[in-house]
C-alpha cells in the first residue's frame, strides 16, 4: 500500500520566551523544534498499514524551513521509506490555504492509496490543512481517525473519535484522506540501524515555485500577538512543591476555583441521603440519563 503523510515541524515555546510583540514573530533562545505529535501518530499508522498490507511505501512530506529536515529524519528513523522537503525559507508558518494548495499541487501527480495528516498542528492549531487538501484533490475525507482497517471488499473501514471516548465506524473507498487523532497503537522507538539508515537517506528537496501556479485563495492576516491574561478565577494557590514551570502552567490554566458548595456531615444514613438528593437535584443519576 502506498501512503503519503504530511508532517509539520513546530516550535515549542515557553511563556516567558518565544515571541516578540514588536515583530509579531516567534523568537528567543531555548526554542525547541519538534515533530507535531498528531503527525507522529499519522506516521505510525502509515507504517502499520504498510506492514499490514505486506508491502508498499510510506512517503513523508513537509513544508518548511531547512531545519524541518530534522523532523523528516525522525520520520525516516521511525520507518518511513521516502522523504520530500518543500523548502519555504521565508515565512515561518504559512496559512492554511497556502499550505494546502502547495501540498495539493505536489501530491496530485503522485500515486497513493492513503493520504494522512495529523488532526491539527500544535502551533497555530488551525486543524484544516488536511480538509483543504482533500477538497482540492477531491478525496473522501474522514477526520479524527484512531484506527484504520481494510474491509474484504477493499474499502477503508476506520474508527474515529467522538466525545467522551465514544467511537464511530466509517467506511469509504480508496484512495482516501484521513486526519489522525491519537492512535490506538504507537510507533516503536527507533533502533540504531534505523537511525543510521535515516541519516544516510537522501531527501528530495523541492522549491515551492516549481509547484506553481497556485489558485488564488484568501489569506489570513495576523494583527496581534500577546500573552494571555490569567483567568480571573479565584484559584487554589499552587503549593511550593511544584517547580516554577509547573506553577506557571497551573496559574495560566486557571487551576480550580473555590466553590460555594454545601457541606454535609453526621451519620452515614444522613450523608448517603444527602448525596442521593444532590445527585437527583443535579440530574446526575443513571436513571435520569
Amino acid at each position: 500500500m502506498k501512503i503519503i503523510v504530511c508532517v509539520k515541524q513546530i516550535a515549542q515555546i515557553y511563556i516567558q520566551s518565544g515571541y516578540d510583540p514588536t515583530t509579531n514573530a516567534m523568537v528567543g533562545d531555548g526554542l525547541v523544534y519538534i515533530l507535531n505529535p498528531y503527525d507522529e501518530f499519522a506516521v505510525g499508522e502509515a507504517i502499520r498499514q504498510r506492514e499490514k498490507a505486506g508491502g508498499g511505501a510510506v512517503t513523508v512530506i513537509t513544508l518548511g524551513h531547512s531545519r524541518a529536515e530534522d523532523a523528516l529524519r525522525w520520520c525516516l528513523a521511525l520507518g518511513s521509506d521516502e522523504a520530500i522537503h518543500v523548502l519555504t525559507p521565508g515565512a515561518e508558518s504559512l496559512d492554511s490555504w497556502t499550505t494546502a494548495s502547495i501540498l495539493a499541487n505536489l501530491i496530485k501527480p503522485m500515486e497513493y492509496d492513503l493520504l494522512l495528516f495529523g488532526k491539527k498542528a500544535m502551533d497555530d492549531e488551525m486543524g484544516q490543512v488536511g480538509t483543504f487538501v482533500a477538497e482540492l484533490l477531491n478525496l473522501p475525507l474522514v477526520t479524527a481517525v484512531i484506527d484504520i482497517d481494510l474491509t474484504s471488499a477493499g474499502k477503508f473501514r476506520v474508527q474515529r473519535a467522538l466525545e467522551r471516548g465514544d467511537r464511530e465506524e466509517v467506511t469509504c473507498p480508496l484512495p482516501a484522506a484521513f486526519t489522525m487523532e491519537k492512535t490506538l497503537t504507537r510507533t516503536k522507538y527507533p533502533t540504531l540501524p534505523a537511525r543510521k539508515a535515516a541519516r544516510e537517506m537522501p531527501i528530495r528537496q523541492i522549491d515551492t515555485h516549481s509547484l506553481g501556479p497556485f489558485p488564488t485563495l484568501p489569506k489570513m492576516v495576523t494583527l496581534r500577538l500577546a500573552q494571555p491574561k490569567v483567568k480571573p478565577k479565584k484559584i487554589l494557590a499552587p503549593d511550593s512543591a511544584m517547580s516554577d514551570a509547573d506553577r506557571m502552567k497551573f496559574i495560566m490554566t486557571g487551576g480550580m476555583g473555590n466553590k460555594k458548595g454545601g457541606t454535609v456531615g453526621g451519620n452515614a444514613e444522613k450523608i448517603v441521603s444527602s448525596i442521593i438528593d444532590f445527585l437527583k437535584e443535579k440530574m446526575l443519576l443513571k436513571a435520569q440519563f
Partner: protein
Amino acid sequence: MSNTIWIFAEHQRGEITESSLELVCEGRRLAGLRRHELCALLFGHQIEALAKTLARYGAETVYLADHEVLATYHPELFTDMLAGLVKTYDPSILLLSSSILGQDLAPRVAARLRTNLVPNCDKLELSDEGLLLQTRLIYQNKIHTTVVCPGGKPQMATLAPGIAKIKESATPKEIRIVPVAPTDFLQPESQRIEVTGFIKADPKAVDISDAALIVSGGKGVQDDAGFQLIRGLADVLDATVAGSRMAVDNQWIDRTRQIGQSGKTVSPDLMISCGISGASAHIFGMRDTKTLIAINKDKAAPIMRLADLAVVGDLHEILPMLIERLRGINAPKA
C-alpha cells in the same frame, strides 16, 4: 452579500446543545452591533420544536432541514447542504461551535466555499468593514492572537466553548422558518463516506481523560479492600475508576488511571473523590471537573473547598450504604 449572521445549531437527545446556545447568544450579540439579522441552521429529524428554542435566544430566521436522512450527522451530506445554502443565500458571517461535530464540519464547509476559517475563537469583534476580528489561543494556550481574513466570503469562525453567556433574549422575535429539503442539495457522486457503526465508550475501558463520570480514590482508602468500594461505586454508577498518585504507588490502580500533574487531565461531568486530600498536583489534573463530590474525614482538606458537595465522613462507612441505595434506585431500569 446579505447582512446576515448565520449560526449552525447542534442538538442532542432532543435539546439544543449547550455550546449551540452559547453560539446563538454570541451571534445575537454580534448581530446587534451592526443591525444584522441572526439566522440559525438546524438539520435533523423531528426537531421542529427546537426552532422555537432558538427563537427564545435571539434567532430571527431558522433554516430548518427536517428529514430522516439527517437524523445523525453525515459529513458529506451536511457539507453539501450547508455550503449549498450559503451559496444560495450569501450570508456575511457563518459561525459554528467548536464541538467535535463543528471541528469536522466547519473546515469542510470552508474548503467547499474556498473561504477562511478561524477555529476555536474566544473573542469575536467586527471591524468597520464588517470583517470578523477573531481572537484565539494558540501554542497550547500560551499565545493570544488576533487575526482577520479580508478575502474570506463568508467570514467563518468556530466559537470556543464556555465563552458566551447563555441568556434568553430580552426581545425575542417572531421566528421565520424556512424549510430546506436535503434532496435539493444531495450530490450522490460526492457521497462516498458511509457511517456504519457507533461504539459507546465502556466506562471500564475508556481512557480516564475522556470519561464523563469518575469515581476516584486516594490515600484515605487505606488498602486494596477499601479500593474495592471505589470500584463498587463506579460499577453501580457506570462510572470510570481513577485515583491519585497514592493509589498508583500502592498499586490499587494502574498508572493509566492516575489523575494529576504526572498523570492525566480529566474533565468529567461528575466526579466523586474519596479519601483524596487535594494536593495541587492532583487538582491540576482534575480542574476541569464540572461537578465535584468530595468525601473525606478531614473537613479542612484542600479538596473540600473546591467541592460542590463536601462530605465529611468515613468513606468506608458511607460507600457501602451509598452503593446499596444506588443499586435499589437503578434496579427498576431495564
